[in-house]
C-alpha cells in the first residue's frame, strides 16, 4: 500500500517522532565520514518504521536510500536495519508518539548507500 492513512483520511494525532538516519555515500569524497540526517515526522496510529521511511522519502528528502520493498509481515528481511543499535525489520517495527530513534544500516552487511545493504 502506498497510503499513510485510510481512505477517509482519519487518524493523525498531534504527537511527533524524531528519526535520525546515518547516511553513507560511497563516492570517494564522502568515503571518509558518514554523516547523519534528522527528521521530525507526525505520528499516526499503527505507524511502522518502514512507513516512516517512505514518508521521509516522499515528503522530506528524496535523496534518502532505503530498501523500498516490504512484505509487511516481517518475513522477507528486505528492510532489516539497526534501530538504536538493535537489528530490526522496519516493516514490523511499530513507532510510538514521542520516539527518538537512530537508524543505521545493518552492520553485518556491506553498505551500498545510506540504509541499503547487500550480504
Amino acid at each position, binding site marked *: *500500500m502506498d*497510503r499513510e492513512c485510510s481512505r477517509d483520511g482519519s487518524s493523525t494525532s498531534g504527537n511527533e517522532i524524531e528519526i535520525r538516519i546515518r547516511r553513507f555515500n560511497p563516492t570517494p569524497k564522502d568515503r571518509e565520514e558518514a554523516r547523519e540526517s534528522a527528521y521530525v515526522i507526525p505520528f499516526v496510529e499503527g505507524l511502522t518504521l518502514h512507513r516512516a521511511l517512505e514518508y521521509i*522519502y*516522499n515528503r522530506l528528502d528524496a535523496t534518502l536510500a532505503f530498501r523500498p520493498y*516490504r512484505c*509487511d*509481515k516481517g518475513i*522477507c528481511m528486505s528492510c532489516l536495519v539497526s534501530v538504536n543499535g538493535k537489528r530490526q525489520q522496519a516493516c514490523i517495527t511499530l513507532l510510538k508518539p514521542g520516539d527518538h530513534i537512530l537508524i543505521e544500516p545493518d552492520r553485518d552487511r556491506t553498505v551500498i*548507500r545510506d540504509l541499503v545493504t547487500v550480504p
Partner: protein
Amino acid sequence: MVKNLDIRKTDVLVMGGGGAGCRAAIEAASSGCRVLLASKFPVMKSGATVVAESFYSAPFGDADPEDNADRYFDDILRGGCGLSDPALAQRLARENCERTRDLESYGVCFKREENGRLFQMRGPGHRYPRGLLPVRGGLWIVKRLHQEMKRKGVEVIEDLLMTKVLTNSGRVAGAIGLDIRQGTPVLIESRAVVIATGGYSRLWSYNDVPCDCTGDGLVMGYQAGADLIDIEMILFYPTAVIHPSFLYGLEMPHGLLLEQVGGRLLNGRQEEFLPPHLPTRDVMVALIYRELSEGRGSSHGGVFLDVSQPEERREDVRNKLRTYLPEKYNYLLKKGVDLTREPLEVAPVAHYTLGGLRIDSNCQTRIGGLFAAGEAAGNIHGANRLAGNALPETQVFGAKAGERASQWAQGQSPVPWDDAEVMVEANLMESFFNPREKPINPSWLKARLQDLMWSYAGIEREERKLKKALEEIVRMRSEDMERVAIPPIREFNLQWIDALEVSKMLDLSEMVVRSALLRKETRGHHFRLDYPERDDRDWLKHILIRKEKERVSLWTESAAGTGPVPPETK
C-alpha cells in the same frame, strides 16, 4: 559507444525473480543453456510470490477423488467469463499437478491430513476441494526455487532494473537495464528473453501488492513489438482491510475466514448480503459495491468481515484460526487485533492483473525469442481468476517458458544488437539528471497517476471518467514527464527507479484506459456503470494492443476463435 556500458553474454535472459522467473530459469538451465536471471530487487525480497497468501489450487483429488484435470479446466473457463484462452487453460489444468510435484521435489511442503493425503479445501468457483496450503506461504516457495536455481548454475543479478528488450529483424538480441547499485547501464546479449516481471496492480493507489509490481515487463514487451491482451481486466481483491488504518491494505482471505472459520460479511447495518455459497471474486466485488453505492457501507466506506464470537465460542474460532491461517492470526494479535473479538472493515483493492503479454500455449509472443510467463502474461484466466490459480500459473508457465526459450536459444545464432538503439536507451536513462525548469519529483508524479487511475479508471468505470483519465494521462506524459528531474546521485537512487518506472506506468495506464473505454459492457472484473450488462453478442472478444508506426493500435478479436476484426487505430 555508451560510456561505462557493462556488457554480459548469456543464452537465455530471464527478467523477474518471482515464482515464474525462478521456475523459468531452472527449466532453461536444465537443458544446459547459460541462464542469467535479472531481478529488480534481490530474489526472495522482490515480487508478488513472496507475499502470496497461502492458497494454491491443484486438482490432485486427495480430498475428493471425483476431481480431475478436465473438471478443473471447466471451472477455469467458467470462472473466466468467456475470455480465458482454452489452450492456455488446458495447459494450466493438465500440467498443474506435475509442476506442483516439482515444487515438492525442491523441498516445498504442503499441509497434509493425518492419513498423509494432501489437505485440500474448496474455494469459490471451484466445484471440488483443490486449495492446498503451502507451509509458510509464498516466501518458502521462492526460497526453494532459489536454492534449486543455484544448484542448476543460474547466474543471478540482483538490483538490476531492465528497461528495454533489444530486437533486430523481429528477433530478440538482448536487453538493456540499469545496475541500481552502481548506477550504470548494463547490456545483456541474449538469444532468448523471458519476461516474468509480474503484474501492474501498482497503477492504482489502493492495492495489496509490493512496490515493484509496476508493469515494466508489459511495456518492454509492447515496445519490442509483442501484443498485449485484455489489460483492462484487473482483479480486485474483495476483502482488504481499510480500518483500522494501520492495517490498511492487508488482505483477509475471505474463503478461509468465511467458509472454514465460519465468519460473516456484513454491511453497515449488520446485515449479511452474500449468497449462501461464496461466489467468485468478481461477483463478490460487485455485491460489495452494490452495498456501498446504495448507502449501506460501514462508516469508513467498506463492509465488516466478522469472525468474532461470544466468549463461550471463542476457543473454537481460535483453534480454527490457528489451523487455517496461523501466521495472519498471530500477526494481527501482535498488532493488538483479536479476530475472535472484533470485526475488521474491508473493501476491494487492486490485487492481480488478468491481462498482459499475449502468449501462445508455449509462452511465445509474436517476437522471435521473446517469451512471457506468470502475471506478466495475459489471456490465461480471462475476465476473472479463480482463487489459488496464480501460484500454479507461475510454475506451469514458468517451466514452459524456460523450456521453450532454451530450445529457441540452442537453435538460433545470435543476432547483433543495434548500437544506435542502445545509445538512445542509455541517453534516456541519463536524461533524468538534466537540469529542468520547474522540476517534478518522479515519486510525486507516480502518486498522482495512481490516484488518477483509482478515481477515474478503478473498480467502477464509465465513459466520462475514462475519457478524463485519458486526457490527463496524455497531459502528464507530454508536460509533467518532461519535467521529471532527479538528484545527482548514481548509487541506489530511488528517484531514478521511480522516474524509469513512472515513464512506463504512464504508457501502460494509457493503454489500460483505452481498453477499458473500448469494452462497452460489464464482464468479470470490468464494471461499466454505463454498460451494466454482459454482452455476449458483441463482446465475447479479446482486446488486443500492438505498437504500429510508434502508435498504440487497438483491435478486437473473437474469443470464440472466429478470427480478427479489422484494427481500430488511435
